[in-house]
């Protein structure tokens, strides 16, 4: 390759090393130390003393919450998202790109802003009530449903897009071949279309599951602090400068993420459904 082009890749490579690899390494090291803000650097040593954090009640509940909310969000996004993707695929509209753009349109505004807005219409007195007189979501702020709603609302596009890509790749003649062999359209969907779109489902699920599992902003805002996910604990730990605890939990999540990526690559060797 041209030397100039190789040179142009350098800035990002350096950026990656300084801002991603080194911090990651530091995080792993800190997780096996006693490092926090109250210690001077000379007092820092390698220790597993704080690892009992992993088995504390609060941590376990947070892990459980994270798993439950991430799983529920993934399942709901899958059930609702699959049929949206299927509808788009089946539609006769020529420029499907426009529909997909509309679906990712909410992502163009800031996540926190969007979530705060959502919180507002979930409050007892909200902007919708003052404008149109009622709000279907009124008075649910702080409940588990509010959190789930916010998570699904935010992450659904990540489910729809890879499923749509997978569906769009299925040759129409396969559907015809199935019907030609005497299989009804309904059964054709389950025997041909669905199995062939599984790649997209797996990719989409992981793309929804991971950020929900590790995220902290949406549950914090919409539950008004009632529901604590693992991300919220990490947030707290760093806020209170117990860096080693925060790092430890972050490493656990990192391991979950790496495990998921391993699953992705097993299902999707070419990475074709990853947008």
């Amino acid at each position, binding site marked *: 390759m041209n030397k100039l082009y190789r040179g142009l890749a350098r800035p990002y490579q350096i950026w990656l090393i300084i801002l991603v690899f080194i911090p990651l390494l530091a995080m792993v090291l800190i997780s096996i130390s006693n490092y926090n803000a109250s210690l001077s650097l000379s007092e820092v040593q390698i220790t597993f003393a704080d690892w009992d954090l992993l088995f504390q009640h609060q941590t376990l509940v947070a892990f459980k919450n994270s798993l439950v909310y991430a799983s529920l969000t993934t399942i709901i996004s899958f059930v609702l998202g699959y049929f949206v993707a299927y509808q788009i695929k089946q539609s006769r509209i020529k420029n499907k790109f426009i529909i997909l753009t509309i679906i990712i349109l909410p992502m163009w505004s800031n996540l926190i802003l969007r979530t705060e807005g959502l919180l507002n219409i979930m409050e007892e007195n909200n902007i919708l009530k003052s404008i149109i007189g009622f709000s279907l979501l009124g008075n649910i702020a702080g409940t588990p449903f509010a959190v789930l709603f916010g998570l699904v609302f935010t992450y659904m596009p990540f489910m729809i897009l890879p499923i749509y890509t997978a569906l769009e790749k299925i040759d129409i003649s396969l559907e015809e*071949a199935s019907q030609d062999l005497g299989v*009804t*359209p309904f059964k054709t969907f389950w*025997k041909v279309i669905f199995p062939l779109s599984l790649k997209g489902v797996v990719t989409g699920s992981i793309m929804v599951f991971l950020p929900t599992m590790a995220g902290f902003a949406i549950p914090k805002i919409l539950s008004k602090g009632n529901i604590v996910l693992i991300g919220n604990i990490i947030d707290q730990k760093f806020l209170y400068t117990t860096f080693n605890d925060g790092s430890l939990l972050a490493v656990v999540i990192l391991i979950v993420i790496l495990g998921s990526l391993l699953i992705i690559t097993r299902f999707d060797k070419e990475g074709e459904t990853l947008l």
Partner: protein
Amino acid sequence: MEKKKALIELIDVTKTYDDENVVDNISLTIFENEFVTLLGPSGCGKTTTLRMIAGFVQPDKGSVIINGKLFNDLPPYARPIHTVFQRYALFPHLNVFDNVAFGLNNRSWDYLTHFFGLDEVTEEAIKITGGEPTKAAMKKVVKSKIDKAVRDALTMVKLKGFENRKVDQISGGQQQRVALARALVNRPQILLLDEPLAALDLKLRQAMQYELKEMQRKLGITFVFVTHDQEEAMTMSDRIVVMKDGVIQQLGTPKSIYNEPVNRYVANFIGESNIIPGTYVKKDLVNFLGVDFACMGYNFADGEKVDVVIRPEDFDVVDVTKAKITGKVIFSLFKGVHNELEVQIGETVLLLHTYESYEIGQPIGLSIDPYEIHMMKVEVNE
């Protein structure tokens, strides 16, 4: 020829896309155990016609009648017709065996017991249980029967031992056989083939042509074959339907279509030919290239203008002194079995095949036997 039963009848069928009649008022009857080929260039409506028989396309006008019943609105899955698709359309998530078994595996219980014979299934189930033919035992019998049917179908297409292969791990020719087995295992009354050989290389294509013809004869299934390759059509078909712009140009046996094309289009499409303007002087005498030729079997008005069709291989090369017409060789190409020559006679250039070789510029004498001269009405609008 024995009287055959009409199996597929298309009556005044029209299909319009965007104000264009892709299939324009076609009527066609296909008989039992027949190998019929729809032949024409792409866009001539042959595939649309096939898809109307399969049920993927509904005709805008006219009726599709199969076995004497109106099939117009019957969905594809309810028709006793199976298709071998152009690019095979094998299911990539299933192996070879499951692809072939797909149709039978997804049929209803009633269909399967009927398919394999309820009495036979019951009898074998009794043998297993030694008493009552339980549903479980019957299910087992049907399963083993499907298994056997699939293996038989794979054996028939010479793919024994490939059962567990993935469909993307086999060659194009093998995929094509899987597609064939997948359709045939369901014992269809009618098999539709949509240019199934187009993606194969020449050698394989020729081999498959014979195999398909053999299979059709052996199984007694009606084959409706779509192709744009006239040689393929010639080799396999009992009858050929030549189509152009959604209209049937000519319908007949390969021989009659080759020897007696009804118009310029068919003559040009089916093999190479020379079309020479001429005049039908009187009965059994035609004048073209300034010479009177004896001809036979055509009736036109005396003095009517006609188009004379002569196939390149139908010229007899004779000594210049004895020749009816003489010309000069302007192009010569060795083609293996024969030489292809272009001969100039006056303003006309004729294409002819001969076993002897000629140098460019050499004079050549030609004569034509009366039965080799074919005539068509002159088309006004061309």
